[in-house]
């Protein structure tokens, strides 16, 4: 039995036994290579679940949306390693209770889908350690290094061009599982901290604030980057922030579900080379 069939039948069992109220997985999309989030509420609906190398979205976004878990019931969700990382972060930030989530873990390597062992987040402790030492995608790393080498005015020009494209649709925020604030700082108008206009200056503000709020909280799933309709390379900023917290504080976001969030904790001997 392939992994897709195995997970389908397990999902059907969980639903028919009432163990979970909902299975969040993937279904067929509008084209042959697109997959879309699918919500299965009955064993029959779980027959429509699809699992293949095109299932790249991070479905943890739905766990924090619209009070889904407020009734205390369980939900099953299909997660790749980056999804498991985000779930770890959400649990560490007390947004999700570990016992409410059943995980159908899978990994995609060289277009092969392989199952990940375990159904509860505690089963994935080893995965966190493994991910910490994994190398980031070379394309991201190389592009970030190219920018670093540019010098500050070159980088400013680069981001000015990129941010000038931003239309403030906030797809990056909406797609991100970590952007669960009930009222985002850009939606606060007394005072209006972040300009609502999508001119380059306002776009700088928004993109810097977004990146800062995700520093040390990003699971590098790439949802924001994929969601961006104007192709701003948000992955580069996220990568750079991840690198910073790792180098400065030896912190890898989403490594485990009992981490202290990096910007909500400190060590007395944190580095401070830049402070006069």
């Amino acid at each position, binding site marked *: 039995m392939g992994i897709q069939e195995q997970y389908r039948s397990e999902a059907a069992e969980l639903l028919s036994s009432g163990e979970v109220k909902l299975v969040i997985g993937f279904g067929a999309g509008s084209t042959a290579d697109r997959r879309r989030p699918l919500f299965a509420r009955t064993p029959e609906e779980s027959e429509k679940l699809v699992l293949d190398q095109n299932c790249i979205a991070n479905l943890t976004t739905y766990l924090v949306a619209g009070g889904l878990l407020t009734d205390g019931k369980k939900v099953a969700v299909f997660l790749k390693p980056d999804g498991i990382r985000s779930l770890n972060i959400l649990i560490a930030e007390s947004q999700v209770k570990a016992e409410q989530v059943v995980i159908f873990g899978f990994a995609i390597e060289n277009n092969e889908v392989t199952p990940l062992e375990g159904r509860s987040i505690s089963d994935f402790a080893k995965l966190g350690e493994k991910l910490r030492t994994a190398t980031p995608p070379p394309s991201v790393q190389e592009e970030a290094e190219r*920018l*670093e080498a540019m010098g*500050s*005015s*070159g*980088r*400013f*020009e*680069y*981001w*000015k061009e990129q941010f000038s494209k931003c239309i403030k649709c906030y797809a990056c925020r909406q797609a991100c599982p970590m952007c669960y604030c009930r009222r985002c*700082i850009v939606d606060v108008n007394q005072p209006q*901290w*972040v300009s609502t*206009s999508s*001119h*380059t*200056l*306002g776009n*700088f*503000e928004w*993109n*810097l*604030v977004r*990146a*800062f709020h995700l*520093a*040390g909280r990003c699971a590098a799933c790439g949802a924001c980057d994929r969601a961006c309709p104007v192709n701003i390379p948000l992955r580069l*900023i996220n990568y*750079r*922030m991840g690198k*910073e*917290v790792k180098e*400065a*504080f030896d912190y890898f976001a989403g490594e485990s579900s009992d981490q202290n969030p*990096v*910007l*909500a*904790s*400190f*060590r*007395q001997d*944190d*580095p*401070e080379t*830049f*402070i*006069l």
Partner: protein
Amino acid sequence: MSESFEPKIVAFVCTYCTYAGADLAGTSRLKYAPNVRIVRLPCTGRISPMFILKALQKGADSVLVSGCHPGDCHFAAGNYHARRRWTVFRALLAFTGIPEERIRFSWVSAAEGAKFADLINEITEETKKLGPFTQYQELQKAIETQSSY
């Protein structure tokens, strides 16, 4: 850079240490560059990165953020939290091309009036060398004209 450029420096300081330090500099009749505008806040932990961005947008050429030495925070740990935040925020600014030389961080205690005066002089001198921070100011100017569309 022409001699006439007088940089604007905005200093976000905590009230318990650095502000008291600045006060001491004043009462000790220490002379320091008049280019700094001090914004007093309860604690460095209260200094949001938004403040820094807004200061740059509104025409600051350099920003100083200063508070109590580690271990001296009036609220026990505000400056430790701030330190982590600055580390990250500094990296973010640097990566997006906002020159990190323009954002300075320091610890100045209530007893360090002389350090405060020296620091301001030093930042003023260095900012003079850097010249005005035009990148953000140009963006600000751009939004005041009707789009070319």
